[in-house]
């Protein structure tokens, strides 16, 4: 099968006078894309446009050379979507809810039965299949959510803040699950938890105030931070002064003082030592002053 190409061309979205997305151009091929952005950066709006539940003010989305507007049902047959807030019918059992979504996704009864069983197994909910989803924990609901998104074996899987509200164990479980299902499809994953996309993202897309800031492989993005991430060892009394003056990342207490991780284009002090940047540094580099959500 040919490689999928999902292209976003000059995409803008306005709500009244408020420009939420501003002339976005991106191309996605098979693999996992991590979309990073602060609250209000336009991540969810971009995703909603990509899953056709929102219409752009201008611009278009093209899949393999065809406008998705024209592809219509054909395109929607290829997508799976997990919205930021998991929506479920509380009185439905997990199985019934998935069967319902399967019928929305055009699966016939037998296909749906098999697929639902397979996905309940995949997300570890087989023994809860007959339980009402209203009684589920946040993590279990999230797993029902990811199962519904995978029902039609989507070629474009779009998951919006999937790990928000999950405990660390659930997050790891989810990351492994995503990693396992990400081959041969485009996976767009928006998050503010950088560890979610560590190791699994082919590229990272950074959105800020509706604009595309960066789109590159994690190694390349991190490479751009070389000589911009520093460690310094300071005394307890100097901490406040450093926090006011620099972008400070991790703070680690050592026997001989406090080790700070500082993100700065220039060497902050003479004794500072350049260190290997990570994705958290990348996030802080772009979003230090903004609400991280």
């Amino acid at each position, binding site marked *: 099968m040919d490689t999928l190409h999902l292209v976003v061309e000059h995409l803008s979205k306005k*709500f009244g006078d408020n420009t*939420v997305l501003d002339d976005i151009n991106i191309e996605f091929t098979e693999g996992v894309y991590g979309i990073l952005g602060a609250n209000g950066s336009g991540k*969810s*709006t971009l995703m*909603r446009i990509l*899953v*056709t*539940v*929102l*219409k752009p003010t201008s611009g278009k989305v093209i899949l393999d050379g065809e406008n998705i507007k024209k592809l219509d*049902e054909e395109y*929607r*047959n290829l*997508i799976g*979507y997990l*919205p930021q*807030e*998991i*929506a*479920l*019918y509380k*009185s439905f059992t997990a199985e019934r809810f998935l*069967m*319902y*979504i399967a*019928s*929305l*996704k*055009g699966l*016939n*009864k037998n296909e*749906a039965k098999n697929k639902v069983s397979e996905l309940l197994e995949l997300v570890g909910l087989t023994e809860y299949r007959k339980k009402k989803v209203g009684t589920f924990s946040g993590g279990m609901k999230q797993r029902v959510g990811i199962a*519904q998104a995978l029902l*039609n074996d989507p070629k474009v899987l779009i998951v919006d803040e999937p790990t928000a509200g999950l405990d660390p164990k659930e997050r790891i479980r989810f990351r492994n699950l995503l990693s396992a299902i990400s081959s041969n499809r485009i996976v767009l994953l928006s998050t503010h938890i950088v560890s979610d996309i560590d190791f699994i993202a082919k590229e990272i897309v950074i959105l800020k105030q509706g604009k595309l800031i960066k789109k590159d492989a994690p190694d390349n993005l991190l490479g751009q931070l070389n000589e911009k991430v520093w460690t310094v060892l300071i005394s307890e009394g100097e901490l406040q002064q450093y926090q006011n003056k620099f972008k400070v990342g991790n703070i680690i207490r050592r026997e001989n003082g406090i080790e700070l991780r500082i993100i700065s284009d220039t060497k902050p002090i003479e004794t500072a030592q350049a260190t290997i940047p990570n994705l958290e540094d990348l996030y802080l580099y772009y979003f230090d002053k903004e609400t991280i959500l």
Partner: protein
Amino acid sequence: MRELIGYELYKIFRQKSIYLMSLFLLAIIVFFLLQMRGPSLNFLYQKWEGPVSSQDIEKAIKEDKIIINKQEQGIDITWEELKLRNVYSDINDIGRYKTIQEEKLKVLNGKISKFENDGDLGYQYRKLKLEKEMLKDVKFSTLYYQRPAEQMNEYLNTFGLIFVGALIIFGLSSIFTREYTTGVDNYMLSSINGRKKIVHAKIIASLIFVGVVTLISVIFDLTFWNIMDGNDGWHADIHSIEKYWDSPYSFTLLSYFFIQVAYQLFAGFAFTLFVLFISAISKNSLVSFIICSFVFAFPLAVETFIPYDMQWFFNILKFTYTEIMLVDVLFKDFFTINVFGYPILLPIFVIGFLVAISIIVVILLYRVIANKQVPS
């Protein structure tokens, strides 16, 4: 598709509110119907049932006078004598109606002749001719004990209307808004069947629901009156009910019952499509519920307040969902619509009218869902 319809039906019938509402309404209906019941008078009518001759009328008037005289002389009359007066009154009504019918035909003939003499053979002329032809066919000349069948017919355009209308509003006004408020619209609108087939499924499931509700209402009606007053009077003419004396339609109570059920169901279907449309464009269930309730209740409410001489307003009301579901408004009198110079009877016209309105509503409904966006 069958699966989707099944799930939509499941969602509709899972709503506890419709069961609570049904029980509440049935309790109220039973309460009021019990006030209206009385012992069967069938045995009093048996002697008189059948074609009524002028001799019968004279005899009935004579026997009625005997009872009246007894009353005037202060002699106690029995319950049976009191109820016999109803029988005599009904017999007398047949005679009175015949006189009125003959008088009306005479007037109509006069008017028709005038139009013919003037060479005006347009809409008014055709309308008068149609009325005359219909009125000639009315044969109200047989007496039956018709109270059970009459009550069963009356139920449809009173309690039956409220029962069906209320359940349509309670059961279906949230059919789309529920998806918006739960957030399931995100899955729905981004799925292959979420913008077209889901609408087919919701429409079909809703119509099935209305069919079931109407069936329950009819079964309740027939059962209640059968238990309370028997199953008599189906062959009586609708003119045996005084409010239909101006009606040019010649129906037995049995055929009229089926006509009423069919019209109520048909108008109920049309109202359902409207409710679905309102639900699709409303932000939440409360807004949808209020709008649908207003549209349903408005004609009933304003009838009480508008002056009787505002006939034009009453005529407009005849084209509302509620009035068409009432049915008797369509058949109580002779009312035609001028379509290219030809008089079309109101009951026929409203079918075309509802079909046209429903087609527009359905087109708009599909368009709304096809263009629907989730709120940001």
